[in-house]
Structure formats: C-alpha cells, structure tokens
C-alpha cells in the first residue's frame, strides 16, 4: 500500500452541501438555493452582520463539492415526494387535506446519475401507525427497484416520531448498504443518509444528513453519530 494517509484523516473538516452554517443561514449557490421560502431563481447576495462570508467558490464547479450539493438537493426533493405520497394516501396521512409524515414512515434510496447528479428512487410508504400500540415501530421496506451497488448513493427515510438521530438499526443498515457499494469498488465515495424528522405539533419536517466518507472496503465502520447531523435546506436546488 502506498497511501500513507490513515483512514481517519480522510474526512475533511469542510462544510459542504446545502446545510445550515454556523450563524443559522443556509448557503446560497447557483440558482439561488438559499434560505427557505425564497424563489430559488436569483442569487442571494444579502449579507447580514452575523452571516458567514459569502461563498467564493461555485460548489457546482468542482465534482468534490457538486456531489454533496446535489445529494442535499435530492434529499430535500425527496421530502416533497414523501408529502405527495401522503397526500395520495389521504385519510390520516392528510388530515384536513394537509399531507403529514406523522402517520407512517416513508423511504427511498438515492441514486447516482450521470456526472454528479443524484436523484430519488422509488418512494415506499410503510404501514400506518398502530394507534393501539405505544411502542409501535415502523417496518418500512424500501423498494430497491433500479438501485444497484454501482449507482447507490444513500437513502432518505422519515421518522414519524420526530427523532432526528439515526437509530442503531438505521446506522448498521446504512453501513451494510454502503459496504455493498464499496465491495463494487466505490471506496473513494461518500454515501449519505437523510433523516426526515416529522414536524411535531404542526411544525414542518426537518432534514438532517449523516454521511459515511471514503474508506477501504474492509475498514471498520464508524460509530453511530450521537449528535444531530447538519440540517439541510428544505429548498435546496441541484446544480444547473
């Protein structure tokens, strides 16, 4: 082996993707992917006193930054698809006509496309919440149609109980999927798991990202995160 860099030093301390920065703002980028509620069309140059300095580098110009940028956009777009699915199911999944992620779990794989593009796989809805069982745990099985070790990029799934953290089962299962991709030679890539915490008390869902960076196929798995991952901009847009 000629690579002198130990695996634990491969993860750079760089904020990438469309995640809330220290100070509270989401990064603006190509197409104005900025804060929630903006139109997504104009680049946002407004800088307030406490905001971090504006990005000097186009995140879409470098593959290393374009992929997490697009993965975050795909994660955010998947939430809209979850809500659409809830609206289609109706009844307790869309009380008063408003789709909700509280009644069941939704999930999807993320699929790598050409270049650095990332898209959502088939959206699967789990069984409805068992209202009689306070210890109810979802048994969602995500449809893998069209997903292979060659194009797998991660997954997005919701937590109806609003927990933003991955469970031990979440993490071990994520690692197992990543292993399949690494076994296919993708040891230089990062894989992403987006957890969509259903908004409690009528609030909107929040999206948090957890990732597993480049490493050898036979390297030990990192421990499950115990701190909440970075929050992803719900209006994140992909690179043009």
């Amino acid at each position, binding site marked *: 082996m000629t690579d002198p860099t130990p695996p634990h030093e491969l993860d750079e301390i760089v904020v990438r993707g469309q995640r809330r920065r220290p100070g509270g703002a989401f990064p603006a980028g190509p197409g104005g992917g900025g804060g929630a509620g903006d139109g997504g069309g104009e680049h946002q140059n407004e800088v307030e006193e406490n905001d971090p300095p504006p990005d000097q580098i186009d995140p879409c110009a470098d593959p290393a930054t374009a992929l997490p940028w697009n993965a975050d956009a795909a994660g955010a777009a998947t939430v809209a698809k979850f809500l659409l699915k809830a609206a289609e199911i109706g009844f307790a999944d869309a009380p008063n006509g408003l789709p909700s992620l509280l009644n069941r779990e939704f999930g999807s794989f993320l699929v790598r496309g050409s270049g650095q593009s990332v898209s959502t796989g088939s959206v699967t809805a789990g069984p409805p919440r068992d209202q009689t069982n306070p210890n109810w745990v979802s048994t969602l099985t*995500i449809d*893998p149609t069209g997903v292979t070790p060659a194009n797998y990029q991660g997954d997005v799934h919701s937590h109806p109980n609003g927990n933003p953290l991955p469970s031990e089962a979440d993490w071990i299962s994520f690692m197992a999927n990543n292993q399949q991709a690494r076994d296919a030679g993708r040891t230089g890539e990062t894989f992403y798991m987006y957890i969509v915490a259903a908004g409690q008390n009528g609030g909107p869902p929040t999206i948090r990202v957890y990732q597993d960076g480049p490493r050898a196929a036979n390297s030990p798995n990192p421990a499950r995160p115990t701190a909440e991952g970075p929050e992803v901009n719900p209006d994140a847009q992909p690179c043009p």
Partner: protein
Amino acid sequence: MPNPVRSLLHRGGSLTLLVLSATCGAAFAQSPNEQQAVTLNPWPYTNLIAEGSQGHRLEIVTEAGIYNQATAILTFGGQTWKVTDWQCEQFRAALNTYRALPGLKPGPGLLLPGASPERPMPPYRPHGEMWTIRTHLHAPDWSAIAVEMRGGQGPYAFWMSDTVEVIKSCGPPLE
C-alpha cells in the same frame, strides 16, 4: 383431516425436520446406550433461537419424538406467547415461508455466481430489528453445522420480524 403442514413436514424438506434428521442419523450410528441418552432428552429439541434488538426472544422447537409439530415461544415486554402450528394457521403459513427461504452462501459477495456492480440492491428496512439467530444449516449431503447469524436485513431477518408479529396475532399472551 390431516394437518397439511404435518403431512408436508413428513415428506421432508423443512429446516426443522432436516436438523432432526441429521441428529437422529448421528444417533443411529452410536452404541445403544448413547442412543438412549439422545432419545430420553426431556426437553424439546430447540431448532431456532432468535433474539432481537427490540427485546423479542423467539424459540421455535419441535417436541421430542414428534418432529412434525412446531411450537413457538415468544417473550417480549414481560409477556409470553406460546403458539403451535396446528393451533394457528398464520404460524403454519410462516413456517411454510421459512421452508421456502433462499439458501445462504458464504461470501465474499463478489465471488458469488451472478455477482456484479449492476445487480439489484436488496430490499432495505431502515429500522429493521437486528436479530441474532442460532440454528443449524445443512449442506446438500445432509451434513449439519451450527450457526449464529446476526443482522437486520435480508430474508431471514425480515422473516423473524414478520413471524413475531404473526405469533402475536395468533392470540393473547399467556396469563
């Protein structure tokens, strides 16, 4: 009317029956005293013990000397369910599903027939209960080997989780 599962099991093929066939085959090759020691085992043969990360513990056993009847003993949250295949059709169906589970092959995965980066990813349960399953596996020559399987994904782990729910639906826990 004969129990269809029992009839099916008599014809062979289930994992449960295969374990016992191999065990008995070994006993017949031993001395009479050794055979008696095996026959007098007072406790049902344990064919499968599974423990889940959510606190489930499931044993599937066959009665000593009555190898075509399966009993499930499930404990969870301080409660116990005891179900037999002839009392609960859903459990019987679960056993039939178990019989049809695909065979496992040792890895690494890329050495398996059909391995390719383009093959489909398996179905995925993000919150799949993590199971530790202790049982016996059998080769085509009927030789048996004790195994302990751990994981939350794939047909065996999914079957465990689904069967736990089936057993709970068969009836209330024991008083």
